[in-house]
């Protein structure tokens, strides 16, 4: 606890979030599983990134490692810097110095992410008081402001409501208010709308989008819903088996996907333009992370697979303005036998 007040080392003029070659490995007595593998990205002030992928692709783990919110069995390698602070080098006691104030998080299931025995107001006010050291009354006023900020109707009465008294949408708004209570610069949202029904989903997404712009926060969304990604993000990263397989601006990635997996995702999603057509599923299922195929992890399910794909994991290669894809098809190294250009090195 003595570390809490120690000044954190800050380097200026760095991007707000910078992740370099992050790998997260879970070690248990019987096996070692690398859940996140060599992930790199940066995020500028006010930018929204969406991590997209199916269950078990490592999106949540990637996001949680930004605030080291993983069980102690997790081992990190690589580097995570938030506003220049090296998160992985912080001592356990120093973590509370960045959690909440620099980086904060919204959870998927607002019912379980709010403490059932305290009212919404108590939970927000307690966090405010802990961080800002203000009086009870001031914290309560701030809690009320926050509930109004997230557009909870009759906010004054909702302050004294317990989580179980609120509807799913209101609960998620309260969760957002709690996450915003210490004015974070980076907001992490772990499938913030998955537990909500479709009509409420879009309201919450629009709210998040407008809050992000209004408060100038950087946001990282985790989702498996392409629609959500289009709605909220500036950039999108597609994850498969713990790696980024494609990364770029939302419009670029969704209009001309470079990786077969991204294409597969797009084809298996309902679009307005493709109404009436049959959806094309991606054949097969995601690989076991403890026993990945020797080459490209997507190769066993890929319609374009060929012998070269089994030779090794292709590097992320550039496909136009800032778009990266991890596939040998259509890359500048298309038919080359060995990778000649490692995009990550130039990031």
């Amino acid at each position, binding site marked *: 606890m003595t570390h809490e007040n120690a000044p954190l080392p800050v380097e200026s003029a760095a991007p707000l979030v910078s992740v370099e070659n992050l790998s997260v490995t879970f070690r248990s007595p019987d096996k070692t599983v690398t859940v996140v593998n060599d992930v790199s990205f940066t995020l500028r002030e006010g930018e929204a990134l969406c991590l997209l992928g199916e269950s078990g692709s490592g999106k949540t783990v990637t996001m949680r490692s930004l605030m080291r919110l993983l069980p102690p069995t997790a081992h990190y390698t690589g580097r995570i810097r938030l506003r220049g602070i090296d998160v992985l080098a912080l001592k356990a006691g120093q973590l509370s110095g960045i*959690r909440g*104030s620099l980086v904060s998080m919204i*959870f998927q299931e607002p019912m379980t992410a709010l403490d059932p025995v305290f009212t919404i107001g108590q939970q927000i006010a307690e966090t405010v008081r802990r961080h800002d050291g203000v009086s009870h009354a001031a914290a309560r006023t701030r809690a009320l402001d926050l509930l109004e900020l997230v557009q909870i109707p009759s906010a004054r009465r909702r302050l004294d409501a317990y989580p179980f008294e609120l509807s799913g949408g209101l609960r998620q708004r309260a969760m957002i208010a709690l996450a915003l209570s210490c004015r974070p610069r980076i907001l992490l949202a772990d499938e913030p709308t998955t537990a909500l029904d479709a009509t409420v989903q879009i309201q919450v997404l629009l709210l998040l989008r407008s809050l992000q712009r209004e408060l100038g926060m950087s946001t990282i969304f985790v989702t498996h819903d392409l629609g959500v990604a289009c709605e909220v993000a500036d950039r999108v990263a597609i994850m498969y088996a713990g790696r980024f397989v494609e990364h770029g601006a939302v419009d670029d990635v969704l209009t001309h996907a470079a990786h077969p997996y991204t294409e597969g995702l797009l084809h298996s999603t309902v679009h307005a333009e493709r109404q009436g057509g049959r959806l094309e599923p991606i054949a097969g299922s995601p690989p076991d992370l403890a026993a990945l195929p020797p080459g490209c992890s997507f190769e066993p399910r890929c319609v374009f697979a060929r012998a070269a794909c089994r030779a090794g994991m292709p590097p992320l290669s550039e496909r136009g303005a800032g778009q990266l894809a991890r596939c040998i098809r259509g890359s500048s190294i298309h038919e080359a036998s060995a990778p000649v250009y490692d995009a990550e090195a130039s990031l």
Partner: protein
Amino acid sequence: MTDQTLSLPLTERPAAIRPSTSYWSGVRRRLARDPVTMICAAILLVILAAVIFAPLLFPLDPYKTSMIRRLKPPGTPGFLLGTDELGRDMLARLIHGGRLSLFMGFAPVLVATCIGATLGIIAGYAGGAVNMGIMRIMDVFYAFPSVLLAVAISGALGPGIINGLFALTLVFIPPITRVAESVTTQIRAQDFVDAARATGASATRIVTGHVLSNVAGPILVYAAGLISVSIIIASGLSFLGLGVSPPTPEWGLMLSAMRQAIYVAPVNAVLPGAMIFIVSICFNMMSDGVRSAMDVRA
């Protein structure tokens, strides 16, 4: 957003936004509507009041013996509930005995709850080796049936109230620890603990704030159920001559002493047992009622 709600007709407002001290007032309302719990609470209250205040208000002598008026039936003038095998006033002895019996019911559970809850929360929250250490020690105590353990400990320490209290406390620590540990383990896995960490709360803050307030309910309900067990085991110890020693009035000891008179004066002989029975069943039913009244969130 605000415009939308204003345009909602009042009748369509969800019930939830009624001004809300609602959780506890809801608990109170549900309790008031539960006749069994209310009756049990009333009986316990009457017994508790009698045990605490009657000796202060009326001249009751539980020790005055008389060979002439032994085993008089209930209703004898001057002896509302009759007399025991040494001619002592049963009512006076039951009331004075209740003080000790109820104290033997509450005190060990109270102490064991404090110790057990602390150990259980530490074990549940810390996990790993700490959990292993604490819970395996508890398992050792758990291996013995509770009555046998209480008899063994107070047998080893010798008779006496203090030793009896100590034995009972030791008997109740493991089950309370186990309940606290399992509830804490569940709570710890909940997202709101992660959420608290994500807003920068320290481990101490999470335990004293979030874990304790969530764990307190189940532990207290469980402990309330143990009070009756404690009364029964305490009476059992006295019955076996290990707890309180004569002539001190205590329900279990009275039951033991009167059992030879069961054919001569059955009603008198059964009275202490009836008191033990009534008090324990009332405690059990009341803790059940409180549990279901508090349990809306699940």
